[in-house]
């Protein structure tokens, strides 16, 4: 079943095809090979599993991208001083050189809207909005000192996902599959879901391949209907006709391979076979009705009703099947107004499922080599926007949490100042987060490069420090 070598082709061509497309022998190639693939050729063998620079702690990533900019001040970063200063203007020194998106920066402080309590043996502080997440506090590392450079959604999301504010760079998922290849031949290596009230501001470029071969792009899955575009047979085509058609196509392609000797034809044969397999494996994967009731309940997932919870459960099922990088966009966190109601709703929609994902992965032994990341493109201002129920975009300090895959559990790293405005200890810039994630996946972020426009490009550009304190 797993030998996809086409029959009836010349042995020499078959050997070359086998070496190139089945991943055999490629594992032994030096990584130097990886840094200089030739565009036309790379696409066909780009998904072979490849060794990393150093032994990896993690081999998969599930990134819960909370698009819109969740308020760290209501969720993780408890600021009693901000409560005390509610209604007062911020000290002018704080605002020097500060640019805000919507508000006049010189707006009054707004005290936190929700209560915090300590949880788990580690005693991490978590908001009352996140009762389920609080239960897995001992499995998580909370980073309260995240910082970004951008304060508008699209550029900030692109920075968080590609390491640059300019469009056109490869996304982190693309870099990871470029570096490690794929563990599955039946599914894409990088899968993207979107839930919430809208799509991410950065659109497709958030999971694009940039200048890397397009095969590294994230593939958008959908929680209902065809999970992958054009997965179903078209009207009038049943499985037997599809199988007969595939057989005929490949027979004819093999004849052409014999005549022309172009290995690309062998790859095409392989692609059609893989497509056919995906037609049965993807619906099977998406059928969460197969999950026992208690698992569905743990996530709050309901078969047939697309939701963030369903996507979390699907993320686990994807990772189980060897999908390298799963990213869930939940664009809902842009609370310029309606802070209380918006956060309450968003947490209700996501909290239980996020925690369930961590628990579920842990129970199955998958958390060891899967990094779960939670966070958005920036945080929110301690200053009010509008009356007294909104906050503006804020890049200087915000919170992320990570779990599994070599992340030190039960730690809270970093601090923001008394207002949650600037980081004051253990600042983790976007590039540092990227460097750390690549490190856990087995890469020296300075050496995972791709030559384009005469330059060796990196996810971290010329920046990034591995955050040692986050490593288990």
């Amino acid at each position, binding site marked *: 079943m797993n030998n996809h070598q086409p029959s009836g082709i010349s042995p020499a061509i078959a050997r070359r095809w086998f070496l190139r497309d089945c991943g055999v022998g490629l594992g032994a190639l030096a990584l130097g090979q990886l840094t200089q693939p030739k*565009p*036309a*050729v*790379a*696409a066909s063998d780009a998904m072979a599993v490849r060794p990393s620079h150093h032994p990896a702690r993690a081999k998969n990533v599930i990134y819960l991208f909370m698009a819109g900019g969740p308020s760290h001040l209501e969720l993780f970063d408890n600021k009693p001083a901000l409560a005390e200063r509610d209604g007062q203007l911020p000290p002018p020194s704080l605002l020097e050189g500060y*640019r*805000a*998106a*919507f*508000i*006049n920066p010189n707006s009054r402080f707004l005290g936190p809207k929700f209560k915090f309590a300590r949880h788990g043996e580690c005693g991490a502080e978590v908001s009352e909005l996140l009762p389920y997440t609080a239960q897995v506090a001992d499995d998580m590392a909370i980073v309260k000192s995240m910082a970004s450079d951008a304060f*508008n959604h*699209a550029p900030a999301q692109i920075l968080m996902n590609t390491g640059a*504010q*300019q*469009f056109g760079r490869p996304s982190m998922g693309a870099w990871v599959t470029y570096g490690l290849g794929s563990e599955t031949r039946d599914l*894409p290596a990088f899968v993207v879901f*979107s839930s919430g*009230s*809208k799509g*991410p501001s*950065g*659109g*497709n470029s958030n999971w*694009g391949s940039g200048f890397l071969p397009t095969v590294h792009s994230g593939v*958008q899955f959908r929680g209902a*209907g065809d999970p*992958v*575009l*054009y*997965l179903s*047979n078209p*009207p*009038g*085509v049943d499985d037997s*006709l*599809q199988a*007969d*058609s595939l057989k*005929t*196509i490949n027979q*004819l392609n093999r*004849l052409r391979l014999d005549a*022309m*000797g*172009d*290995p*690309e034809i062998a*790859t*095409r044969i392989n*692609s*059609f076979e*893989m*497509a056919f397999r*995906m037609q049965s494996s993807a619906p099977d994967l998406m059928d969460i009705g197969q999950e026992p009731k208690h698992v569905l309940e743990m996530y709050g997932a309901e078969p047939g009703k697309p939701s963030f919870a369903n996507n979390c459960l699907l993320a686990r099922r994807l990772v189980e099947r060897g999908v390298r990088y799963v990213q869930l966009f939940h*664009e809902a966190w842009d609370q310029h107004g309606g802070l209380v109601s918006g956060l309450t709703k968003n947490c209700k929609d996501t909290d239980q499922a996020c925690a369930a994902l961590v628990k579920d992965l842990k129970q199955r032994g998958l958390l060891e080599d899967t990094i779960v990341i939670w966070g958005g493109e920036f945080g929110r201002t301690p200053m009010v926007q509008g009356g007294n129920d909104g906050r503006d*975009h804020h890049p200087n300090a915000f919170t992320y949490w990570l779990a599994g895959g070599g992340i030190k559990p039960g730690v809270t790293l970093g601090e923001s100042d008394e207002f949650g405005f600037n980081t004051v200890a253990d600042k983790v810039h976007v590039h540092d987060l990227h460097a750390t994630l690549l490190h856990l996946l087995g890469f020296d972020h300075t050496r995972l490069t791709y030559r384009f*426009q*005469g*330059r060796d490009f990196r996810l971290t550009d010329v920046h990034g420090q591995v955050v040692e304190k986050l490593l288990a």
Partner: protein
Amino acid sequence: MRMALSFIIVASLLSVSRLGAADKLDFARDIRPILSDACFKCHGPDPTTREADLRLDTEEGARADLGGHFAVVPGHPESSELLKRVLSNDPDEVMPPPSTGKSLSPAQREKLAEWIRQGAGWSTHWSFTPPVRPEVPRPTNADWVNNYVDAFVLARLEQEGLKPSPQADKVTLLRRLSFDLTGLPPTIAEIDAFLADKTSDAYQKQVERLLNSPHYGERWGRLWLDAARYADSDGYEKDKPRFVYFYRDWVVKAFNDDMPYNQFLIDQLAGDLLPKPTQDQLVATGFLRNSMINEEGGIDPEQFRMEAMFDRMDAIGKSVLGLTVGCAQCHTHKYDPLTQTDYYRMFACLNNASEASAPVYAPEQLQQRANILRQIGEIEDDLRHRHPDWQAQMRAWEDMVRGNQPEWQVLRPELDTSGGQKHYLLEDGSILAAGYAPTKHTTEFAGKIDLPKITAVRLEMLNDPSLPLGGPGRSIFGLCALSEFQVTVAPADKPGEAKPVKIASVTADVNPAEELLDPTFNDKTDTRRVTGPAAYAIDGKNETAWSLDAGPGRSNVPRKAVFVLETPVEFPQGAIVTCKLVQMHGGWNSDDNQNNNLGRFRLSATSADGPTADPLPARVRELIADAEKSRSPAEDKAVFSYWRTQVGDWAAENQRIAELWASHPKSQSQLVLLEKDQPRMTHLLERGDFLKPKDPVSPGIPEFLSGKTTPEIRDRLDFARWIADPQSPTTGRAIVNRIWQTYFGTGFVSTSEDLGSQGELPSHPELLDWLTVELIDSGWSLKHLHRLIVLSNTYKQSSAASEELLTRDPDNRLLARASRFRLEAEVVRDISLAASGLLNREVGGPPVYPPAPDFLFQPPASYGPKVWKESTGPERYRRALYTFRFRSVPYPMLQTFDAPNGDSACVRRVRSNTPLQALTSLNEPLFLDCARALALTTVQKGGADDDARLAYAVRRCLARTPSPEETGILKQLLDEQKADFSQPDAKPWDLAANDPANPPALPEGVTPADLAAWTAVSRVLLNLDETITRE
């Protein structure tokens, strides 16, 4: 001790050198790439990162005295510090240092040693000197040489001990040529005609036919559009549709007309600065406007204007110069001699422009418009002719109206840049709206008026080049609707005591009749919203609004309204006046082009009694202001055009002119760049940060590219002319390399975006230069270049690859065969459309919307709801070039087959081969439409029996006839499917008809089951590797 060791290594290395004396090393080919990659980062052009004061990118630098020792001592490897360092075993001493992650191979070290031994010859990087025509080599097998291209290619092959492949058969050749020149497969009739043509120039005739096809421009234009990062939407979060297809059509036409490439570049970079620019020349500047635009809430528009500027620089670098310039945005280039100042001097050439949108007209509309303007001119000429004293009369009128306007004091509001839509206060006290555009909103502007008495407030609507069609509004028509205008006043010394004041009346210089609000602004409510006269702005109803729409051709002009207060406001200390602009006439979707907002406007107040809006247009008022000032004839005519409307005796003529205006065509718009009158200062930006401007810089070009004479560069036009100059060393080479890349899969330089130090060296440097000089000498005729290439025997070779060739030259860099590759996304689509007979070959026009899954355009897949109104009828089957391109939601079929999305310039597409492509071509609706149509046309026209029909269907897809073996395989499928679809419970129409309830008529003797089986066979044919491959 260490030194001594190095010595021994050097010596031993030289003694065992495999490089004999005959192997004369070439600095550019053999040495510079090593130095560039391993050394330039710390010992290159950038002084800020230069170590040990050593630079190895210049000859002087490499030979400089470094305090008693020298990096390079020509002829003396043993004394050259460079060699000691690269050979050292000491991690603290070895170069490049281990921390850089770079190391030299033994062969590279050996080359460096030998190069120094041979005298350390130096030369400028190959692409930085203007190309000169090289000598044409004389290969042994002269019979094979059809033109100069072949001489170069064959000479190289003979050097490598290789032979060219035999010529491809005629059918393959015509199919290849048709794809290459038009992006479409040949029809059966075209193939038959070519096969039947036994004349010696049969092939040349095909070349000329295809070069003259209107589809040639579509094919080559599309490749330029990649480089021009063309897309039909803004990008970023909102990603609104934009109006740029005139640019796309201009590109297609430029290729079809074989516009000289230098002119092609000048028009795109500076068409607006040419004397009396034509509409086409303005449209061409759309190249610079293909940058993305961010209008998400809370942005600083200047930040994203700068992003667009950086993008323009990148696009010019990649697509025109073939160089990477982006690095120097933040710091002096590490590899190429491009300083950060050079970068900002080029930047300054582009920086003095407005991001504008111009009204544009289709060719027939342009004609219509010219006729109308001519007729109006004739009527006016006739009036002047019949009234020789018109000037005296007009002067008398001018004297009468000159002083009849009251004094107005401009209200300069304190602007708070918070909020979604940003407002900027300009020097003249006018306010410019920019950034995010809410569709329903109210803004207030408050400022002090130093008048003891205020009787009225005036609102002027003004033009600005940043507004659509120049404004005055922000709607896609450049207009706006003012739902309500309200005024509040407070004594200047008691701002807390603000009170609303009642507006008694309003006058305006435009008062359109009531009309239902344009459907563009549909707000999904049942409210009946209308626009009309200025009175609608003070009627207390948000459903009615004042509109500036005076009809096509003359609406985008300044306007004004004067609001008279019921009771004059009298505060001895002056007043704080707050004007509230209620703008509720936009649509429901602020993520689309539905705003109807004011763009640029100015508020002022007066103490005069009973003021009314000046009926004179602002320009006329300005022209007559000074009775002493002489006017040009054109200015006189401008005044006349208004004055004649005031002459009662001329009512008939005025009526005729008004009717002519009413027949004026409605314009489309196109994003263009327009030079600003007021220069904008350019600064070097620290690390590319627009908030950190450093020294001012003036326009200029980098020295290393300027050739022998440094031209004076004052503006964008000078810059464009320099770029398009034959002496500009990389311009010609870059386009020749890319055209070659399109024919052979890889350019002479595979890194077609970078011909600089870090790029690959050319595989055939002499041929590249020869073709470049040939292009320039032909008057920059790209068709001439195409002709040279496709007429060569190199091009005509078979693409079949032997085992030997595959092993020896897998990427076909030596050109001992033709290249075989899967075609571009658009061509893949067009092949199916053409093979099926569905293709609509119309050229040009607005983008179309072939079928796509609706959910992609709705949240949460898309950020905002997007409109994708699926095209029906022939528009559904236009060439893929015309498919609407949203940047954030790329058209799935095109994206899957590697079409770039326009985020940045792309001069080299990747070519992937994936299961998602297979799923798409198997299952996507339009592919299925094509399979059905191919089946129907096959049973209708393919012949009497299945063998004939199979041959027919195969020829429509592959041009060639099937082999018996292939026929057998296809027939088996056909027969099985006929049997299956003949079963009683089978539903053949489900497969064979787009609408099973309305199946197509069948030829006699053909059953629905037959057609279904043929649809299955057609689907197979459209999915073959060969079908989407150029062989």
